[in-house]
C-alpha cells in the first residue's frame, strides 16, 4: 500500500526546522497534559481524574509524547547533512506522533463510550489531543533521512546477550500484564501501546539492531525465547484462568504452524486443515481410556500420538494424491469438501447411520488426563513455592511440541525441499522444467502438515476432555488460515503472532463477541487488499505479492547487500 505523501521530500527539506519545533512542542504539551485530569469520573478505564500526577494509562501517553519530543530534538540537524544517520530519530518521532494520536483517540473514545458521551472528557484530555495533533502535523514536516544504520554496529557479546535477555524480559512482562487486563478498554489501550512501541523501535532501527544481534547469537536467542515461554506459568501463581487461554493459544499456534508448512512454504491452500486436527483428536479419544471409547484397545499415549499422526497423514495422502496433480484452486475446494466429509462422517458414524465409532454428534466425552512418565496431568504441582495446575502441565507439553514443530519447519525451509517449495510457489512450470519433483514435494508438504495436525490433535483431545464433531467445522479452518495470513505466510514469528492475536482477542474483547466473525471476515479482505504478506513479512513473500513494485525490490536488495556486508544471518529462517 502506498500512503500518499502529504508533504514532498523537497518541502520537508525546507520545513524541517519548523517541524522539529512543532513536534517538540506538541510532544511536551502532551507530556504536560498527563498531569491534568482527563475524565470526569474515575469509572472509565483507570482513574484519570487526578490533577498532579499521571495514571498508568496516562503514563503511556506521556511516554509517546516524550518520545516524539526527544526524537525530534535529536534529529533536528538531519536536514543539513546528506541524510545519513545511525539511529532513525526523525522516523521514530513520526511514528511516535502517529501512535500518540491513535492512542488518544482510543482513550478518549473509550472514556466517551464507557461514561456515555464525550462531554465526560475533561480539559486535560482535550489539551492532550491538541498536543498529539500538533506533534502529528509537525512530524509530517520532518525529513526521514536514509535508513538508519544502527544494525551495522556490532556490540560486544555481553551487551548483545544482555539486550536479548532484556527484550525477553519485556516480552514476558508484557504477556503477564496484557493477560492481567480484565477490562476491555484497558486491554485495547495496552494493545495499542504495545503495537505503537514496537513500531517506534522499528523505525528507530533498534529492532533491526536487535534482530542483527539475535542473528549473531542465535542459540542464545532461541534459548532465551523458550526460557521466557517456560517462565510464563510461574507468573500466574496457580491461576487457571489465563493458563487455559495460554494452552488454547499454544494448540492453535501449533496447528497454524503445521498449516504454515502447507500454505506458507509450499503455497497449497488447504481449507480443510481442521479435519486433520479432528482426525488426530478422534483417534486419540477413541484409543484413550474414556468410558465412551468404542474400541477395546488402549495403548499408551506415546503410541497413540504416532497413530494419530499416521491416521491424519494417511488421510492427507488420500486427499492429496488425486488433487495435487491438478491446479491449486481445485485443491482449495477439494480440501474444503474433505473437511465437510470428515464432519459428516464423524456425525454419521454413530451406530444408526453407520458403524459405531464416534458416538455421532455427542462425540467422545470424558477423555482422561494424560499420564506421562509418572506425571499425572490432572495434579497440581508446587515448584519453588508456585503452584502449577492442570493447564500448566499441558502448557509445558505443548511447548515441547511447538519447539519440535518449529525445528521441523525451519529445517525443512532451509533444505533442498524448502528451495523446491519456493520454486513451485513462484512458478510451477518453471520448477518442473528445472527438475523439481513438483508432485512429490507438494504431496510431502501436504502429508507432513497433516501428520503434525494429527499429533497436535491427539494432545488437544486430552486437553479438551471431550471431542465432538462440531469443534472441527470449516470456520476453524478459516481461523487457522487467517492466523497464517495475518501473521505472515512462511514465517514462524508471524504465525505465532497471528495465532496469539486471533485467540487472545476474542477472549479479552467480550464486548465484540457478537461481531467477532464479521470483523474477522472484513479483516481477511482488508489484509489481502493492503498487506497480503502479513504483519511479519518474509522478504521473499513480500516480493511475490508485490512483483510489480520496483521500489520495494530495490529496498529488499539493498537490505540483503547490507546484511551480507555485516555477515548477519536473518532470524527465523526467512529467505
Amino acid at each position, binding site marked *: 500500500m502506498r500512503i500518499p505523501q502529504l508533504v514532498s521530500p523537497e518541502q520537508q527539506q525546507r520545513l524541517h526546522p519548523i517541524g522539529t519545533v512543532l513536534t517538540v512542542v506538541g510532544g511536551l504539551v502532551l507530556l504536560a497534559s498527563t498531569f491534568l485530569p482527563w475524565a470526569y469520573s474515575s469509572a472509565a478505564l483507570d482513574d484519570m481524574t487526578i490533577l498532579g500526577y499521571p495514571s498508568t494509562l496516562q503514563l503511556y501517553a506521556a511516554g509517546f509524547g516524550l518520545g516524539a519530543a526527544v526524537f525530534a530534538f535529536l534529529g533536528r540537524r538531519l536536514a543539513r547533512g546528506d541524510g545519513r544517520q545511525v539511529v532513525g530519530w526523525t522516523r521514530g518521532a513520526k511514528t511516535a506522533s502517529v501512535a500518540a494520536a491513535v492512542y488518544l483517540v482510543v482513550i478518549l473514545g473509550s472514556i466517551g463510550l464507557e461514561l456515555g458521551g464525550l462531554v465526560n472528557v475533561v480539559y486535560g484530555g482535550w489539551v492532550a489531543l491538541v498536543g498529539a495533533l500538533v506533534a502529528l502535523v509537525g512530524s509530517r514536516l520532518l525529513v526521514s533521512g536514509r535508513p538508519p544504520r544502527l544494525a551495522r554496529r556490532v556490540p560486544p557479546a555481553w551487551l548483545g546477550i544482555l539486550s536479548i535477555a532484556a527484550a525477553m524480559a519485556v516480552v514476558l512482562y508484557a504477556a503477564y500484564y496484557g493477560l492481567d487486563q480484565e477490562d476491555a478498554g484497558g486491554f485495547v489501550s495496552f494493545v495499542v501501546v504495545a503495537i505503537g512501541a514496537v513500531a517506534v523501535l522499528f523505525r528507530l532501527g533498534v529492532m533491526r539492531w536487535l534482530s542483527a544481534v539475535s542473528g549473531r547469537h542465535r542459540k542464545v536467542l532461541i534459548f532465551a525465547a523458550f526460557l521466557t515461554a517456560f517462565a510464563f506459568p510461574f507468573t500466574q501463581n496457580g491461576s487457571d484462568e489465563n493458563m487455559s487461554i495460554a494452552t488454547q493459544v499454544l494448540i492453535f499456534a501449533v496447528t497454524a504452524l503445521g498449516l504454515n508448512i502447507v500454505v506458507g512454504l509450499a503455497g497449497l491452500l488447504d481449507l480443510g486443515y481442521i479435519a486433520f486436527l479432528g482426525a488426530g483428536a478422534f483417534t486419540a479419544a477413541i484409543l484413550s481410556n474414556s468410558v465412551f471409547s468404542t474400541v477395546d484397545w488402549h495403548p499408551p499415549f506415546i503410541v497413540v500420538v504416532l497413530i494419530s499422526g499416521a491416521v491424519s497423514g494417511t488421510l492427507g495422502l488420500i486427499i492429496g494424491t488425486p*488433487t495435487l496433480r*491438478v491446479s491449486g484452486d481445485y485443491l*482449495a475446494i477439494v480440501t474444503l469438501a474433505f473437511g465437510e466429509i470428515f464432519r459428516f462422517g464423524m456425525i*454419521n458414524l454413530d451406530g444408526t*447411520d453407520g458403524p459405531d465409532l464416534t458416538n455421532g454428534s455427542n462425540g467422545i466425552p470424558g477423555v482422561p488426563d494424560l499420564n506421562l512418565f509418572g506425571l499425572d496431568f490432572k495434579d497440581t504441582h508446587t515448584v519453588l513455592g508456585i503452584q502449577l495446575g492442570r493447564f500448566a502441565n499441558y502448557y509445558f507439553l505443548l511447548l515441547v511440541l511447538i519447539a519440535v514443530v518449529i525445528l521441523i519447519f525451519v529445517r525443512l525451509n532451509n533444505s533442498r525441499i524448502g528451495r523446491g517449495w519456493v520454486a513451485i510457489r513462484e512458478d510451477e512450470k518453471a520448477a518442473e522444467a528445472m527438475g523439481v519433483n513438483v508432485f512429490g514435494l507438494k504431496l510431502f508438504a501436504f502429508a507432513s502438515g497433516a501428520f503434525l495436525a494429527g499429533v497436535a490433535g491427539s494432545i488437544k483431545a486430552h486437553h479438551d476432555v471431550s471431542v465432538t464433531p462440531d469443534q472441527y467445522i470449516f470456520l476453524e479452518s478459516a481461523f487457522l488460515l487467517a492466523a497464517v495470513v495475518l501473521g505472515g505466510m512462511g514465517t514462524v514469528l508471524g504465525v505465532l503472532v497471528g495465532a496469539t492475536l486471533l485467540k487472545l482477542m476474542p477472549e479479552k474483547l467480550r464486548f465484540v463477541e457478537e461481531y467477532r466473525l464479521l470483523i474477522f*471476515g472484513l479483516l481477511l479482505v482488508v489484509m*489481502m487488499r493492503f498487506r497480503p504478506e502479513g504483519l511479519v513479512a518474509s522478504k521473499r513473500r513480500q516480493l511475490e505479492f508485490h512483483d*510489480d513494485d520496483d521500489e520495494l525490490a530495490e529496498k529488499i536488495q539493498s537490505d540483503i547487500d547490507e546484511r551480507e556486508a555485516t555477515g548477519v544471518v536473518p532470524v527465523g529462517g526467512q529467505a
Partner: protein
Amino acid sequence: MTQSFFQALADGLTLGSLYALIAVGYTVVYGIVQLINFAHGEIFMVGAFGAVATFVVLGGGTLAWWVLPIMLAGGIVAAVLVALATERLAYRPLRNAPRLAPLITAIGISVFLQEAVRLFYGRIPGFPDAKSNVQFPNIQGVTGSPFVIGGVTIQRAAVFTVVALVICTIFLYGFVNRTRLGRAMQATSQDPDTARLMGIDIDKIIMIAFALGAALAAVAGMAQGLLNHNINFRMGFIAGLKAFSAAVLGGIGNIYGAVLGGLVLGVAESMAVTYVPGVFGGSAWKDVWAFIILILVLVFRPQGLLGARVVDRA
C-alpha cells in the same frame, strides 16, 4: 421398483436444477478471470433474503401468484448489487495478485456476508430475525398440494425450479451467442489480451459475468426457499460447494457444462440415497456422496464431462 427410480429421478432433477443455476455463476466468472468466486454461495443466500425482503416491503401480505415475479426481481437486484460490490471492492484490486490472495479474500467475503445477514437483517424494521430459520412465504401456485403422476410425487416448487432452469438456459444461450455482449464475453474468455485489443472493455465484461451469475443464483435462492419453506444465513455454504462440484463435473468455464454437471450431480446424489445399500445409503450420507463424486471426477476426468477451457493453470 420403477416407481422409486422415477421418484429418485424427479427429486434428483429438482436438486440438480438448483445446483445448475448456482453452478453457472462459478463457471462464468471462472471462464473469464480464472477466479473461483468462493463467495458465490453467499450471493445465492443474499438472493433468497432479498426476495423475502421484497415480499415484506412490497408484497403487502398477499400470497397471490403475481407476487412471485416481484420477489424474484427483488432477489435478483439484491444479489446482483452485492456481487458487483464484491467484485469492485474486493476482487478487482487483486486481479494481478498471486492466486492465493483472491481465494483468501473470497473466504473473508463469504464469512462477512453470512454474518452481515445474520446480524443486521432482522434489525431493519419489519424484517424477520435472520439468526435462525426465516419463514419463506408460501406463494400460491408454486406451493401447495403436489402433483402425483403414476405414484411419483412432484412438488409444485420442483416444477418451478426445473422450469426456471429451462428458461434461464434458453436465455443464457441467446445471450451468449446472439448478442454483442455475449460474444464479447466469449472473446474475453478465449483470449483476454486480444479481446482488449479489439476494443472490448474487460472490466465491463467481468462485471457482467458477476451480475449474470448472481442473477441466476438469486433465482436458485428463490427456488430453494419455495422448496424448503424456509431459508437461513448458512444455506449458501453447502449449496455453494455442491454447485462448484457441479461446475467442475461439467467442465469449469463451460456454461452448458455447468448446467449438465448440476443435473448429473443432483440425479447421482438422489440415486445414491435410493440405491446404495446398507447404512451408507441413508440420506445422512448424501452430501458425502456428492463430494466423493467431485473427488472422483478430479481423479479420472479433471477437464469435466464437456471439457473445460483451462484446467491446469496453476
